[in-house]
């Protein structure tokens, strides 16, 4: 097989092989069974709970879970704002980077709090090492832990029984961080150290190049950061260029490790669900639905990137490496195209090539990955999003064949359906309204005043686009899609570090994070209280290929109806113009 194709096949298969045993391990962690990491982490966790005056065995109902989740997230928000607004005088700032402006701090704090990691700053100049490690990297751990803990609550609620008691949130949260995220991170970071990723607290270095130019090289504690950035599907880069940067992602091996690290837990959470609730077949159905969706998006993206840009072909040069604008030679077009789709379906949002310069088909598939947002999805929350679609599919399927809509022995009724519909439709609502407002301002070239100024100091709204025409529209659509999917990648040409984009994106981020956590946890909590109905001939079977197709169809129909017009104005129009 061609070595570049073989490379991505290896990434995928390695992930799957690791994810099944990890899923089993995760299920044991949440079930509180004995595991080999007890010896190391049990004393630490006990100490943490004692200091924090928490009883980790106290069971909570779904409302108490959400109360704790929101309270602790609010505290983290204040901590992040403190770091960002005071980094100028705080320690560990060898490059003398300045405090953030308040609108940028608002955007950055929220963006890392909600596991999105949209970055309107560049790591080299925008933040100090203190902020990177104590502010942002801390949030990368705990925001991932939050999503996983919420998924654990849902797992617990879906077991065959009737209860209000769904475990302890603090316990799920802390164990997600210590037992699952931390060990994987240590391994990933250690590999990176030996491939060339720095881990130093020294500041910028100055070297003279062979040609005699003076050159500054940003360093920093990168290895620790890059590990949790992927293991927690956060995606925020240490450097501005994210994983395209040759220190953050030095070679093909580190690229494989980062790719496996970011898809690993999203895969494993599906299997963990199967092991935890003892519904392994259902887990494989879910995983297959996700994988089919992923493959439908990734194959065309790889194909078009390898083909190259027809406009450049007209200039008479060759494109042996495919479309290389915004890509790195050491990864090649195949691995970058694979990455671009993987990072968008699982809501990591890290990049190893600049998405703005990808071909229209790839751009559209990245957008679709984020619009559907549950082909795997981010750690924990991906499963929650998928769960919403399952509820919808059960209801529709039940009506179609004239059976009572039931899922895992619980009746799905009007209240759950209403919540599921609100969550499913809120995502397109946020994306389309945001894009519509921004497009309206751009089309009228509105004078934005305080809200926006381009590099030349002009306040015209069209100045925030880096590309004209359809591609410019895609830049704005991508930004809000990325926010609403809590993804964090961008068509980075968009001039987004200004009050208009910082503030509006921050608002979208908040809603799109917490509603899709509250909704599924509420549904699961309500279902858990209902009477358990044993399987009978009247039950709609969910662990079958037919049901898998139904879930897939529901996703496609919702996405197609909601997003086709917007995609037609952006990437589809661009493709038609180029061909």
């Amino acid at each position: 097989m061609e070595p570049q194709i073989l490379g991505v096949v290896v990434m995928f298969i390695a992930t799957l092989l690791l994810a099944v045993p990890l899923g089993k391990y995760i299920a044991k962690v949440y079930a509180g069974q004995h595991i080999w990491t007890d010896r190391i982490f049990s004393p630490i966790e006990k100490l943490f709970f004692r200091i924090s005056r928490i009883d980790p065995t106290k069971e909570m109902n779904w409302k108490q879970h959400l109360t704790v989740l929101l309270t602790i997230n609010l505290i983290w928000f204040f901590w992040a704002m403190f770091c960002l607004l005071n980094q100028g005088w705080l320690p560990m700032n060898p490059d003398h980077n300045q405090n953030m402006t308040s609108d940028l701090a608002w955007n950055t704090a929220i963006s890392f709090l909600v596991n999105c990691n949209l970055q309107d700053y560049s790591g080299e100049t925008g933040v100090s090492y203190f902020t990177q490690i104590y502010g942002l990297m801390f949030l990368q751990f705990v925001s991932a832990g939050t999503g996983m803990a919420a998924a654990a609550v849902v797992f617990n609620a879906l077991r065959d029984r009737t209860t209000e008691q769904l475990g302890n949130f603090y316990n799920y949260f802390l164990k997600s961080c210590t037992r699952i995220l931390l060990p994987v991170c240590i391994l990933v970071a250690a590999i990176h150290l030996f491939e060339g990723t720095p881990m130093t607290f020294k500041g910028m270095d100055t070297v003279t190049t062979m040609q005699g130019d003076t050159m500054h090289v940003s360093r920093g504690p990168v290895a620790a950061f890059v590990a949790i950035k992927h293991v927690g599907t956060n995606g925020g880069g240490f450097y501005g260029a994210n994983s395209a940067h040759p220190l953050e992602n030095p070679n093909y091996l580190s690229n494989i490790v980062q790719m496996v690290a970011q898809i690993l837990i999203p895969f494993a959470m599906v299997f963990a669900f199967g092991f935890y609730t003892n519904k392994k077949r259902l887990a494989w159905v879910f995983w297959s639905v996700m994988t089919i969706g992923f493959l439908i998006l990734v194959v065309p993206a790889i194909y078009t990137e390898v083909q190259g840009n027809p406009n450049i072909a007209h200039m008479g040069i060759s494109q042996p490496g495919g479309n290389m604008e915004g890509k790195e030679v050491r990864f090649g077009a195949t691995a970058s195209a694979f990455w671009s789709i993987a990072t968008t379906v699982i809501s990591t949002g890290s990049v190893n090539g600049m998405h703005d310069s990808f071909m229209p088909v790839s751009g559209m598939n990245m957008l679709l990955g984020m619009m559907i947002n549950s082909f795997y999805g981010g750690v924990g929350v991906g499963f929650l999003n998928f769960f919403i679609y399952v509820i919808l599919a059960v209801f529709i399927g039940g009506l179609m064949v004239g059976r009572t809509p039931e899922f895992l022995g619980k009746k799905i009724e009007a209240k759950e359906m209403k919540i599921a519909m609100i969550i499913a439709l809120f995502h397109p609502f946020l994306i389309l309204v945001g894009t519509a407002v921004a497009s309206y301002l751009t089309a009228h070239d509105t004078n934005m005043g305080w809200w926006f100024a381009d590099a030349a100091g002009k306040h015209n709204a069209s100045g925030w686009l880096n590309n004209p025409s359809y591609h410019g529209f895609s830049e704005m659509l991508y930004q809000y899609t990325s926010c609403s999917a809590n993804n964090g990648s961008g068509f980075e040409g968009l001039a987004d570090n200004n009050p208009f984009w910082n503030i509006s994106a921050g608002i979208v981020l908040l809603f799109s994070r917490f509603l899709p956590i509250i909704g599924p946890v509420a549904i699961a909590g309500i279902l858990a209280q209902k009477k358990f109905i044993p399987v009978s001939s009247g039950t709609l079977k969910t662990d079958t290929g037919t049901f898998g197709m139904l879930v897939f169809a529901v996703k496609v129909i919702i996405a197609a109806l909601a997003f086709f017009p917007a995609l037609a104005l952006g990437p589809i129009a661009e493709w038609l113009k180029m061909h």
Partner: protein
Amino acid sequence: MKKEIIPSLLLTIVCILFFSGVYPALIWGIAQLAPNKGEGFVIKGDNGKYYYENIGQKFTDDKYFWSRPSAVNYNASGSGGSNKGPDNPDYLAQVQATIDTFMKHNPDINKADIPSDMVTASGSGLDPHISVQGAEVQVARIAKVRRIDKSVVEALVKKHIDGPMYGLGPERVNVLKLNIELDQTTRRQ
């Protein structure tokens, strides 16, 4: 909510100390065993100079193999790509201009032999590599400017081709390493 504030706050503090204190300290400790103690791989040059192996440098001199165009001009205090869309007329004009410049400095080649990586900006702006074809297409120029035999330069390029890593991924040439050895070879002759 009120009674959860104190426990949440305390748990936050211990988590900050653990995940932002202990964890990075551990990784930093492991880094002390890694090459160059986790400060980035470096290569020694002449006169006590050193270079970062993974950070591309700006090579525009005719006597050196050129690196790829860069949106940040190979200044590694920042990083980033051009973010130009594939159908942007300004961008296409810029690529055309880069091709023209390349042809002017390499008059003996066929335009069809220029690979696209030599005229497009990388994602980081610091790409240390070019494609094998990108190196080969510059051989004639280098040989002429340095007045050395073409076969010598060709052999040098061949020596610096990094094959797929563990059989995976693309072939590539590290421009910095190639140019260091190019200088040494020229001096010897």
